[in-house]
């Protein structure tokens, strides 16, 4: 007897007990749907994050100082400890291509052409290499020491008239004072350029740390490297002009984070750059070491490594869900086995008829096994469809690109077959060894 014939007969008997069959497969549907939904979401999330890391970003090391074991990803618990001196010393290292500070600066608003829009966290001070050439859609990187900015499309488009290269923007600081800046470049995407910013699209204005951060420090006096400047008087003050008596100077500016660019994305180069940079920053004669003490530790990682932490959390969650799904599948299998046993008893007479007209034991076995497998596979397919629907809805809701986990769909069907075989084996064996004489007499 051919498998197709088994399938036809199995389908006939499943179809005659629709409700029962549907309820039986529910356990499988839920189990498979849970896995597929989560895998779809996980894969989409991963693609959404990893897709934003350009190959060139692979050679950037993102460093910050925080108490060891602080959880929460990039910049979690970061303290401003890095000075311009430290950065320069790292920058001069042979193993390092470039090093610069990173500092988000709080603002009140952005203004263009007399139009004011509130904006608290758009301003980011960094070194010119922070704007990687391939991310610039129009214009160029800003230059250190110049009142220049690179903006992203979200900023360019948020005013009535689009901001373009060469236009002047006005930045209104926390204190209310205003600084003007010339737009020299526009990026190709509104997503963050590094793990420090996060990857979600948001308006951002990138400016050089000098003058925008250093002059802020100039204004508020020593000790505060933060972005909580309240009384900055040095609006249009000459930036970074060295020592100025007792006043705080650019030299005292401490950065929240540091970006170190290795010569290449090669793992060896990155490790060397990391080791050399850490050696300088942690050495006793660095400015950072004054503040590091025993409490703070410098973390230096690439985007990929930082995302790995997220990945680990995702993996952990995934294992958890798969565990629950496995339990659901076991329960579902028991359900199928149970209903198959009932079915075998109910159809004892039919088994007798089939055997009387020449059905071999293996035919009867195959028939019931096929029925269990069909139930399992239907459960798997419906579960997959449901899981994909939920996964896509979730991905759409949190606005990440959809990824089709094809291999899991195939896996789900394989699991459905396996569940069917395992749960159908014993009932089918019971059916196969039914004595036709007794079965024909069965009422």
């Amino acid at each position, binding site marked *: 007897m051919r498998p197709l014939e088994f399938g036809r007969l199995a389908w006939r008997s499943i179809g005659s007990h629709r409700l029962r069959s549907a309820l039986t497969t529910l356990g499988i549907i839920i189990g498979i749907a849970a896995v597929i939904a989560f895998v779809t979401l996980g894969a989409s999330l991963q693609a959404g994050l990893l897709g934003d890391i350009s190959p060139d970003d692979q050679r950037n090391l993102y460093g910050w100082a925080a108490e060891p074991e602080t959880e929460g990803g990039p910049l979690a618990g970061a303290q401003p400890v890095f000075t311009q001196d430290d950065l320069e010393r790292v920058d001069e290292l042979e193993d390092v291509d470039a090093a610069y500070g990173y500092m988000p600066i709080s603002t009140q608003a952005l203004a263009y052409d007399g139009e004011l829009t509130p904006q608290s966290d758009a301003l980011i001070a960094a070194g010119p290499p922070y704007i990687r050439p391939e991310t610039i859609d129009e214009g160029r990187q800003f230059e250190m020491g110049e009142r220049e900015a690179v903006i992203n499309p979200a900023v360019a488009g948020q005013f009535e008239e689009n901001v373009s290269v060469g236009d002047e923007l006005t930045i209104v600081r926390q204190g209310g004072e205003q600084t003007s800046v010339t737009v020299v470049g526009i990026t190709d995407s509104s997503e963050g350029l590094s793990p420090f910013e996060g990857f979600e699209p948001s308006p951002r204005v990138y400016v050089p740390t000098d003058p925008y951060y250093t002059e802020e420090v100039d204004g508020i006096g020593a000790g505060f490297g933060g972005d909580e400047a309240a009384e900055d008087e040095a609006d249009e003050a000459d930036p970074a002009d060295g020592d100025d008596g007792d006043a705080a100077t650019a030299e005292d500016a401490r950065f929240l984070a540091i970006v170190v660019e290795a010569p290449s994305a090669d793992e060896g180069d990155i490790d060397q750059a990391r080791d050399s940079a850490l050696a300088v920053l942690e050495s006793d004669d660095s400015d950072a070491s004054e503040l590091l003490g025993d409490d703070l530790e410098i973390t230096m990682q690439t985007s990929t490594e930082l995302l790995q932490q997220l990945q680990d959390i995702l993996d952990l969650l995934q294992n958890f869900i798969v565990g629950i799904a496995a339990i659901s599948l076991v329960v579902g299998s028991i359900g199928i086995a149970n209903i198959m046993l009932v079915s075998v008893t109910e159809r004892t007479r039919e088994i007798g008829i089939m055997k009387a007209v020449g059905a*071999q034991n293996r035919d009867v076995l195959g028939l019931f096994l096929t029925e269990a497998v069909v139930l399992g596979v239907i459960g798997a397919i419906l579960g997959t469809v449901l899981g994909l629907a939920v996964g896509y809805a979730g991905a759409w809701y949190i606005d990440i690109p959809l990824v089709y986990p094809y291999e899991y769909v195939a896996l789900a069907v394989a699991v459905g077959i396996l569940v069917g075989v395992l749960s159908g084996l014993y009932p089918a064996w019971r059916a196969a060894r039914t004595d036709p004489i007794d079965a024909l007499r069965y009422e």
Partner: protein
Amino acid sequence: MATGTAVSLENVRKTYQLAEPVHALDGVDLEIPEGSYTAIMGPSGSGKSTLMNLVGCLDTPTDGTVVVGGQDVGDLDDRERTTLRGMTVGFVFQTFNLMPRLTALENVALPQLFQGVSRNERTDRARELLERVGLGDRMDHLPNELSGGQRQRVALARALVNDPTIVLADEPSGNLDTETEADVLDLFDEFHDAGTTMLVVTHERHVASRAERIVHLLDGQIERIEELDSSDASPRSSAGHDPDERTGSAPGANG
């Protein structure tokens, strides 16, 4: 009429080991020629069902030999017996025993499914037989959409689908009213006339009298064999009426 032997039983004994051994059949000798029409009668407990099971290759004898279609059933393993049953025996039951979820056509085609016959071939054969039993317009009906007489005709068509050596009918008209019973038995006659070997188990005299001979069973032994003149259907005894004296086609039947 063919001259070979469809089924032969030689000194057949079947013992069931219950609380104490029960001899369902106790030394039965019987030969059923090809193309013959035999009825088996007897009170319940006389061994009719056991005899049916043995001839139908559903069971094996405790002792003696049962030869069906030239093969000794006792020598075969379960698989071979199933194949032999499928190919050489057609069953007709009192309760019809059709598959409830299969149409008349599919029921008739079912035995050939297990013989690996292709779908088209099966369907053609089943259609032909259903037309011969007068159900050409009921092929796609499910059993519960058919009357008792129609169901039994489907069952007869199914029994004939593999061109069996023998058709075994167990109380074939037990669930039918008089009129449909006559229709079904007429069909039996028709197929018998066409050369099919028939073995009918019944407790009703008028059903048995359609046969060429009646085998009377009592307490697991053949009480007597009654030869009937098929042309005028009047009973004609071939043996003495002493119940202790067993008669059969083969000598030495004493157990």
